[in-house]
């Protein structure tokens, strides 16, 4: 138990430091993200450039911090909105029942059969590859698991005595959903969020690496890794640093989500169906 707390603290500290550094990247880093120092280009790690520089002489650490801004925020925002959508769909399906339920669940099943990256790629064709294009594509692919969980929860709640008594007392439908159903869902929403954020960070970097992510001037960790991969054989630092930053943040998120999961819910619901996708 003690060892676990220690790793949770380490993960939390790492993620907080990383987010703060990303948020205040302009002040933290002595370089601008597009500042080119030609004489230092393609240099390995040194005191001036802790993670070295890329082929245009840009400081890699600075670019990773600015990339973190994009990667972390897209992961957080798409995770959050995906779950809101999932909660909405789950509640509506369970509450309305009948053909609404059937249609919504068929849609959910259909979308879960296809790999979410495939759907996201097809959607970026439609929405384009700006911030909002990627945002919508990832939101559309991250609600299914959660919608199912919420639907199950609501169906269970419906039959409990406190809901029945609220109905008997004449609570209106919105009141019932907002005051009585929703508060019992927060726990599972929170746990789902801690799984969905890293999954979406990974998905975005995957798209970016394939060349299907943000178009320039945006550059996320995936974009940096893609640039790095081409020059990798001569300059391994260009793929290792962006890749490792992503890896350590994902491990951090995994430690946190396992911690939340064991604290607030039983293992069974999440252990298999809500793993990282890419």
């Amino acid at each position, binding site marked *: 138990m003690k060892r676990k707390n220690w790793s949770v603290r380490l993960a939390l500290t790492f993620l907080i430091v990383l987010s703060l550094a990303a948020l205040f990247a302009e002040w933290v880093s002595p370089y601008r993200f597009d500042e080119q120092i030609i004489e230092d280009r393609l240099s390995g790690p040194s005191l001036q450039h802790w993670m070295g520089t890329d082929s245009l002489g840009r400081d890699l650490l600075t670019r990773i911090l600015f990339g973190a801004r994009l990667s972390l925020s897209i992961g957080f925002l798409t995770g959050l909105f995906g779950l809101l959508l999932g909660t909405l769909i789950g509640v509506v399906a369970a509450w309305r029942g009948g053909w609404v339920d059937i249609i919504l669940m068929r849609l959910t099943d259909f979308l879960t059969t296809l790999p979410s990256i495939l759907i996201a790629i097809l959607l970026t*064709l439609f929405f*384009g590859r700006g911030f909002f294009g990627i945002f919508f594509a990832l939101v559309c692919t991250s609600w299914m698991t959660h919608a199912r969980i919420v639907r199950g929860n609501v169906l269970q709640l419906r039959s409990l005595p406190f809901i029945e008594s609220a109905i008997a007392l004449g609570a209106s439908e919105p009141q019932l959903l907002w005051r009585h159903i929703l508060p019992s869902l927060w726990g599972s929403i929170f746990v789902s969020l801690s799984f969905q954020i890293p999954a979406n960070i990974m998905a975005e970097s*995957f798209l970016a*690496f394939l060349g299907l992510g943000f178009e320039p001037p945006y550059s996320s960790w995936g974009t940096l890794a893609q640039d790095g991969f081409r020059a990798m054989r001569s300059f391994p630092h260009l*793929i290792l640093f962006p890749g490792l930053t992503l890896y350590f943040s994902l*491990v951090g998120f995994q430690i946190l989500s396992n911690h939340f999961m064991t604290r607030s819910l039983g293992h069974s619901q999440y252990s298999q169906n809500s793993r990282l996708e890419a």
Partner: protein
Amino acid sequence: MTYFLRKSSSFLLTLLLLSASVFLLLRIAPGGPFDGEKALPPEILENLNRHYGLDLPLSEQFAHWLGNLLSGDLGESFQYIGRPVSELISESVSISAVFGVGAILVSLIGGSLMGAYAAFHRNHWIDRIAQFVVSFGNTVPSYLFAGILVLIFSRWLELLPPALLEDPGSWVLPLITLAIRPLSMVLQLTRSSVSESLQTDYIRTAVAKGASHFRVLFHHALRNSLIPLVGLLGPLTANLLTGSFLVETVFQIPGMGKYFVSAVINRDYPLVMGVTLFYGTLLLAMTWISDLLYGWVDPRIRLDSQSAARQEST
């Protein structure tokens, strides 16, 4: 029989729905297939559009596409001019299939044996390695994994080629990259289900009868724990598809995943449609097969809701 009819009609309906929505998505999407660096003169663009039937109303285009599909014609690629999509698919599918089947075999055999062993010897060093593989497979970005493999095996040790398919050695790194995630999925599932079944009464009986560790583990515990793996068939296939996009791009393998990615980038509509339809069919078929296998492997699960109802009423 009714089960079969119902299932196959929903199968076809889903595929139709999939192709219609992808078709619509592609045609409404902003930007056309002929937007190049330089804008084409309007009359050439008009000719191109007429040649590929892009000037017709959407419903007509879709009906046309569907009609051709029934006769096995998926249209011509925009990007590889004059080459039918069906030809491109049948050329690339065998390469991707070899990798896919290879990765499935590696992950099923390696994952289940290692998972069973790890469950039997909790906290043994093999169990530690197993746990590391699971966590690594779940979190490591596959491009980083590919990068590390290339650095170690082709740059530093100079054992294996870093890309392209030339000699047998060049199949190794892509296969490992593709198999790591499926392997960790199988490993995780087997480890937990074997350790669950080790708690059961029939295992205690087997041990009490004096069966050897080996026999208890592989004959009694593992056999029953393999049932949940059947349900993994769909997710595994989905995972391998996504993996193939990356692996084939990174290692320059002329498989379907690479074609799909470049078709999306170049807005090659017929190729995107063809490959998506192929993927959809494959995934639905895998999910269906896994349903069927479930019923066959584990008679406690009934597929046919009618027979289930019959059982209930008796």
